[in-house]
Every structure is written in C-alpha cells, then in structure tokens.
C-alpha cells in the first residue's frame, strides 16, 4: 500500500488537524502537539500550512503501532481558539451518529 504521504500532493484550505483511529479499539483520535494521540479534539495540533500538515501527517504515520489510517482533516477555529470539526464526516466522527438508536442501545 502507498503511504498516505505519497498518495497525493498535500493541499489544505484552512486550519487542519491529523486524525486516525486508535489501533486497539478503533476509537477516533487526533494527533497532538506533544507527539501523541488524544480522543479530545481540543488537544489536537492545528496546522495552517501544507508543509506543517505534511510534517504532522508524516510523524503520525510513523506511529503505526498506536493508530491506523492517519489523514488530514479540516477544522474551524473560532476567535477564542476553540476547535470544531470542519465537515459533516468529522462532526459525526467526533459526536457520534446523528440518529436515534433503538431504545435499549447504550448511548455513544
């Protein structure tokens, strides 16, 4: 398989983060500035240039043991610095499914 870095030229349209799924349980995780992973989007390292995005992705991809399938995703950062998902897919990954489930199912 081609590494995510070779797949295409990296372009970003605005503030971005790197996200993946945690290896042991598949949970959604975000790459942090401290070179680790967090399930908390507010702890994600936000990059604003293609070069920085490439570096962050490259570092994330090197940590194949802990997380699977890293990629760059857009975020929105407001004036207070709060980070929010930049598209519906990422919103669903963060907040869970958008649908009511059958009553006895445990909530996400």
């Amino acid at each position, binding site marked *: 398989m081609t590494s995510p870095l070779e797949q295409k030229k990296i372009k970003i349209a605005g503030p971005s983060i790197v996200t993946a799924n945690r290896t042991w349980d598949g949970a959604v995780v975000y790459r942090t500035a401290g070179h680790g992973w967090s399930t908390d989007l507010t702890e994600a390292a936000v990059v604003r240039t293609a070069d920085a995005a490439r570096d962050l992705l490259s570092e994330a991809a090197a940590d194949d043991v802990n997380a699977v399938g890293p990629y760059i995703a857009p975020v929105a950062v407001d004036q207070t610095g709060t980070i929010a998902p930049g598209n519906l897919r990422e919103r669903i990954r963060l907040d869970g499914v958008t649908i009511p489930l059958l009553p006895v199912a*445990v909530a996400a």
Partner: protein
Amino acid sequence: MYAYDDIDRTLLSERVSEFRDQVKRRLSGELTEDEFKMLRLQNGVYLQLHAYMFRVAIPYGTLSSKQLRRLAHVARTYDRGYGHFTTRQNIQFNWIKLAELPDALADLAEVGIHSMQTSGNNTRNVTSDQWAGVAPGEVEDPRIWSEILRQYTTLHPEFSFLPRKFKFAITASKHDRAAIKIHDVGLRLHRNDKGETGFEVMVGGGLGRTPFLAKTIRHFVHGHDLLSYVEAILRVYNRYGRRDNIYKARIKILVHELGADKFAQEVEEEWRQMDKRVLTLTDADIENVRSRFSYPVYENLPHMPDELKAAAHDTRFEAWRKNSVAPHKVPGYAIVTLSLKPVGMPPGDATAEQMDAIADLADRYSFGEIRVGHEQNLALPHVAKRDLPALWRALDKIGVATPNVNLVSDIIACPGLDYCSLANARSIPIAQELTRRFANHETASLIGRLHINISGCINACGHHHVGHIGILGVEKNGQEVYQITIGGRADENAELGNLIGPAVPYGEVADVVEDIVEAYLALREGPDELFIDAVKRLGVEPFRERVYATR
C-alpha cells in the same frame, strides 16, 4: 437447520487461534497495518468512521435460536448492545474493539458462526431465499445447494485472491426473494423436461458504480455439474478479469465487455476441457449434505384454527396478519416476517434484548429457527397458525411487529455516513424521516407495495438501483445531496431504476418521495396497479414533472 461436521468445527477453531495470534502481533507492533489489513479483512473486520466494524456471515440466512442468542451475546459483551442486519444476510457490529475480537470470534465459533470471507476479493457469503424450504411451490430447498457451494468456495485457494469480490445467490421459487439478478452469479433452481433438478445460470449482475443485471449463460446445468460449471466460470473470470482497475474488476464488467454470448462460449470451452471428475457431485454427495439439514416434524393442523378466528376481531392483529404472515408449504402453518423497520428507527437494527427475545419465541413457536432476509427483516419460518395471536402479542411487545412489510416504510438502507468510512451522505436519517412521514398504516396500505432503497454512496450496499424508489447520497460542495431513481426492482423481473432529475438536498428528500407517491396515487389505474407497474406504464416523465414543477 444444517448441522456442521467435525471438519467445519476444526476449521473454525483453527481460524480463531490464527486470528488471535495475528491480533496479538498487530497490537505489539510486530505487524504493521499494511501487513495486518488483509488478515483482518479475511476475518470480516473493517475500519469504519468510529471504530472497527465486524461482519458476520449468516449462510443462506438461516439461524438457530442458539446462534441468534450468541449474536445477542456478542452485541452485549463486545459491542454497544445492538447489531445491524445487512442486505447480504450478514450481521454487522459497529463498535467492536480489535483487542476483543478474537474472543468474539471464539464465542461465535462455538455455535458454528464465523466471519470468514465476509470481505476481501474472494467468494462471499452464499445467500438464498429467506423462505427456503418452507415456501409453497418451491422446486427444492435451495439451501442444500447453497451449502454445497459454501463448502466448495470456503478457503478455496484458487478463489481466495480473485480480481474482486464475488457473490452467489440462489433461489428455487418462481418469485425471486434472493435478488439473484444483482449477483455475480445468480442460480435459479428448476426442473427440466425430464424432471431433473438443475440451474439456470445467470452471470454478471451487480450494482455499484456500473450497475448490470445478470445475463443467463445457460438455461440448465444439472445439479451434478453445478460445481464444475461454477468452477469454469470462476476460472474464466480469474483469467480475464481486470486486476489493473478496481472499478473494472468485477465479473459484470468482463461479461459486459466480452458480451454474454462470448463469455458463455469461454465458460463452455473451459468446462468442456476441464477434468470434471473430482467436481462432479454424485447423488450420495448431495444426499450427504441434504441429510445434514433437519426439518421440523409438522403436525396435522387446521387451516383456520379457533385461535385465529377469535383474534380476527382485533384490528391491530388483523392488520399485522394480513401484512406479515405468508402461506407455508404445510397447511396449518405460516411464515411470519418480523419487521426490523419500526417508525423512526434505523432499518435492520436489532438490540441484544430483541435478539434474545426472538430466539426464545423461535424456540416456542418456530422449531428454534430464524431466517434473515436481504430486505433486512427477520422471519420465523414454521409457525403454527393457532399460535399466531400469541406470537403477535409477544412480537409487538418487543417492537418487531410493525405491519409494514413490503410497504413504503419497509426501507432498505445502508449504514451511510453515520458509520461508513466510504460514505458521501447519510442514509439512515433519510429512512427514519420517511418512516415517520408514512407512519399511518392506512395510508401505507392504500399506497400498497413500494420498496424504497437508500445508499450512502455509489457502492450501492442499500441496493438503490433496484428500489422502486432508489435514493443515492452524493456529496456536492460539502453538502449531502440525493439522486432519486424510480422503476427499479430486484425480483424475477429485475430492472434498474431511472433517474428522475437533478439531485435534491438532504432536507427535501422526504418531500420529493411524498410528491412521487402522490403522483402515483393520482395516476394509477386503480388500487391493483402497483407503483412499480404504474412507473412501467407511464415512464419517468409524469413523476419528474410533479417533483420539479415547483423546485
């Protein structure tokens, strides 16, 4: 029910140990994801938006109550308390942890269930009519042949690395409930003039980006020759199938590019020259598989028992009976469909509690047997008619007696963007909104048979091309929009639907469907003209006009 033999049991337990070791090595970092991906896919483990997804096969849609209880156990112990029945007689668990997967697999193996070949470029779960063995007028139980094919294709070395995935479906009834024409190979069991049992063989069906209906390449292949003929098909595919382009790799593209006649010639040629000896099924081989299926000992029961007469005054019961109860080949018995399409809920989902309760009801009323249909509903195949009122009360209590089978709210929907990493748009909320719009049973009955199928991307897991109304989610400038087709069907008269016009935004889909339905009600010749027949007679135009006149 089919009883597994020692070979099956050994295979499953070896497979679990092997996967346990692979998972351990992945978690320790000994295996990279690139190395591990193929191994997990061979065990039905995908990575989706929120978590790993685990797909378990339910061969030819038959489950014992013990197996269903075990699926409930997996949902409860390793997942979030529910599972999703798919359009290919599989069940999917959405939140499984990789570290716990080997335990889940081991628990399932104990009751003879597995996830082998539920993903990857191999031969997938062999599907069949969910009413197999009980449908009136059936030629023979098609599951015998499904099982023969299952054994033959499981871990077959030559067919484990095909150009692309490969799906079989089998039916033995005139009315096709197994959607065989949208499978790579569709087999219709019938008898020839001499009274021998064999198959009409259809090849090259499939949906996705380039949808095709399967073409008949031989009208009759004797049952003895089924495996050699199928092997000839797979060899031709293996030889000529495109491995350079994933979008052109399915057998449907090969059949289309070569033409069905030429493809048939290639198969015949391969078949003529191959050494068929080991693949020819003897009567004893067939009998051996047949004898491993057990059938209930039916009683001699009245066609119209007192219990049924007494319950007839209950309008809710009657509405359900008329909708969800079908004739059985044995007088005094019925086939009962359990709707997994409650109003406002995800199509095809069942909770662990529901699965347990259904397993108990199957023990009590259906000789311990449950069926799974491609429409994402369940069925109890052997219910004595006298038990129908009691069964209905129990099913109603657990929420699986919505009388909407085959009606407008009996929607097929894929998981879509709420779960699936390939999705462009959501499917389930569209289905939920539609079930709310058409929640009134009288309105739905007035509309009559109408199948709505929804997919969240062009991969078409929700079979949108063959929905009477098909809804396909696509993404446009970051927004979810939906293309709508009408006129598709997946039965013996299968057709692909036609687009009615430009895609519509998420918020308008339910309105558009209502417009289409209203147009049908206004234009139909009478209540006997089904939606699908009206579309055939009228074409797309009147529906297009109605939908887009004000948009």
